């Protein structure tokens, strides 16, 4: 797997500057990067930079606009709806990061064992990843149906657990957890395959050595497997964090932020501000803050989790 071949990446980049200069003519010419840079600048950089301007205006999205300085950002500080959306976003992100990766790790350990159904199960658990999140949300809207005969409630009834039936998406105290469940269902398989790649990269000798030293099953996991999974954990945590913070499709398709405001996330709020309320300028300000926030969280995570890897 590429995982193992690419571990020494860190050492390869840290080569001495002198060698690089000597190898000057070995450096590819600039036009290798030019076409990509051109397309990237035209499609991403230029529009984003010109889009930032709107964050400092009162533009409705159509018609005239005028600059209003930092008013949008000031408004954001006092906006109750944005604040509760931030809270839901963080709650969802933390839940998804913990549960998705926990479940993913357990699944990975399960299908990494010598069970006969491993290949089939791997495919089963991973399949939802390739399907569009909006379709998954449509499907889960049915699964979460409050009708006692349908969806999860129907299953609970068949199992004789009728008391556990819930109004999964309609109960304001439950809805955030229900959405997290749907996201975990879709992406646990993703975490699983990344952990699997990590597990496959752990040399069997190491575990055998631990066994010979008399380590129990748990100790073997705790002192051999878990530390060596650190790189996989880094990737998984970062991916699920970014995914959680930007979560939009699933929420919008499943509840539209409701009931009331109880499942509103930053992304649904910024969408509504732009296209439902006609406050494009304010929406851009939220988008900008969200981008900075995601970037900051990612940097902190890289710093912390990578540090942990080196420690191992």
């Amino acid at each position, binding site marked *: 797997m590429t995982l193992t071949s690419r571990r020494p990446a860190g050492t390869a980049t840290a080569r001495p500057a002198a060698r690089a200069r000597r190898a000057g003519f070995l450096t590819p*010419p600039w036009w290798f990067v030019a076409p990509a840079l051109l397309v990237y600048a035209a499609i991403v950089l230029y529009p984003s930079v010109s889009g930032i301007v709107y964050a400092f205006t009162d533009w409705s999205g*159509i018609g005239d606009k005028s600059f209003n300085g930092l008013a949008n950002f000031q408004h954001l500080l006092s906006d109750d709806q944005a604040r509760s959306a931030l809270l839901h976003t963080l709650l969802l992100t933390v839940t998804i990061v913990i549960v998705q990766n926990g479940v993913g790790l357990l699944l990975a350990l399960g299908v990494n064992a010598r069970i006969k159904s491993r290949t089939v199960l791997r495919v089963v658990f991973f399949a939802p990843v390739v399907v569009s999140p909006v379709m998954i949300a449509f499907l889960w809207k049915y699964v979460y149906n409050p009708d006692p005969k349908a969806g999860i409630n129907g299953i609970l009834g068949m199992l004789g657990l009728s008391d556990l039936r819930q109004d999964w998406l*309609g*109960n*304001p105290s439950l809805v955030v957890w229900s959405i997290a469940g749907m996201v975990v269902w879709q992406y646990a398989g993703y975490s699983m395959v990344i952990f699997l790649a990590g597990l496959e990269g752990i040399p069997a000798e190491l575990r055998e050595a631990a066994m010979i030293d008399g380590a129990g099953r748990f100790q073997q996991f705790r002192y051999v497997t878990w530390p060596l999974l650190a790189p996989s954990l880094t990737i998984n945590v970062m991916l699920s964090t970014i995914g959680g913070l930007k979560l939009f499709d699933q929420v919008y398709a499943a*509840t539209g932020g409701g*009931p*009331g405001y109880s499942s509103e996330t930053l992304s649904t709020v910024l969408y509504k501000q732009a*296209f439902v309320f*006609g406050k494009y300028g304010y929406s851009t300000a939220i988008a900008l803050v969200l981008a900075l926030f995601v970037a900051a969280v990612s940097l902190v995570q890289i710093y912390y989790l990578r540090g942990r890897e080196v420690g191992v």
Partner: protein
Amino acid sequence: MTLRFERNRREFLRAAGGLAAVAALPVSLAACGGSSGGGGGKTLRLVGVADQQKALDELTKLYTQAKFSTSYAPTDQVQTSLRTQLGAGNAPDVHVVYPGNGSAMSMAQIAQAGLLADLSGQSWTQSIPANFKSAFQLQGKTFIYSAGSSVIGAIYNKKVFADAKVEPPKTWSELLQVCDKLKKAGKIPIALGAQTPWVTQLISYALVPSTVYAKNPQFDSQMQAGSTSFAQSGWRDAFNMYLQLQQRGFFNDNPNGTTYEQQTSMVATGKAAMAVQVSAVLPDFRKAATNADDLAMFPFPGADTAANVWIPAGVVVGLGVSARSRNADAAKAFIEFLGRPENINRWAEAVACVPLKRDANSKIDPVLNPFLPFIDDNKAVPFMDQAWPNAEVQPTHFAVVQELLGGKTTVDKALAKMDETYRKKS
């Protein structure tokens, strides 16, 4: 760097040429795409909501002066893509517009931005009834075409009513008695699919004409002047009545988790007796029913004396012409065509609404008959959001109703929130 540039420029140009060829490849494929519609003339780009498709499919086929490139999508998606297109200065020639004010795609919001062409000169505009003028016009100019109005009332299952031996009620207290009997007969009296946001508003809208406008027809202008508020008005009664229906157990369990689709199927299959809905969705209910004739409608009574019952009748979603359209004349000519009495009738029939002007050829869905006297007596009020000053009040209304149903807020707080949102500048 410069040296290498000279050396490699030819290679770069060659590579660029290759890219251009790749980019050019799909052009020939693109030519396979086409546009629909018959006849000659210009091609008009038309974007509508899914509800309009049936009517427009028929009418664009009949119109021979232009070709059409049409697209229809559900409201949310149309709203998003149209707002983006309008914002970027590339509106379709003809596009969906919501009557009055109060939503991001409403006539007043888009016309204020100068993006709708003035349709005032067209002859059909003469037939706009006085009480609907505000839905069509901003500062005396007409900016939207619409074929008529739809009403909000109870869609009910006649079989379920007959089995429980009840008749459509004429007053609020009769309604409560009817619901009681239906409940005793083992049926859900009122199906409510409040997970679907727009469904939340319908019961308020059905009650408010009686609790607010019948007592104070000037309510909208007083709201605009700031001399009254939701909290001081009959809106409070409407919310209390809404909750009373819930407290008496007249709704299905878990309305906040129930969707419009489930609501539809409950009434259509006779599990529930009725649902408060807008007449435009009758086709959906009929599709889901064993026998479409089992379904009928009655005005949902919001007052204790029959004479004080008013109903909501709102102008149905319409079309506008983009002010920036390069084909504005051709587009306006198409609207003129839609405005002919026979075409207003065709559209009205396709969407089961009451045509703007009734004539001998109007085919009005017979289940709407109980509503016509209200319209003729001027006891019909446009949908409330059409008079709201910004696009946030309506979504706030959705949210507070869900919160009320979920027990997460009180009537006082809900009204205060709506008042606060109403007073935000648009």
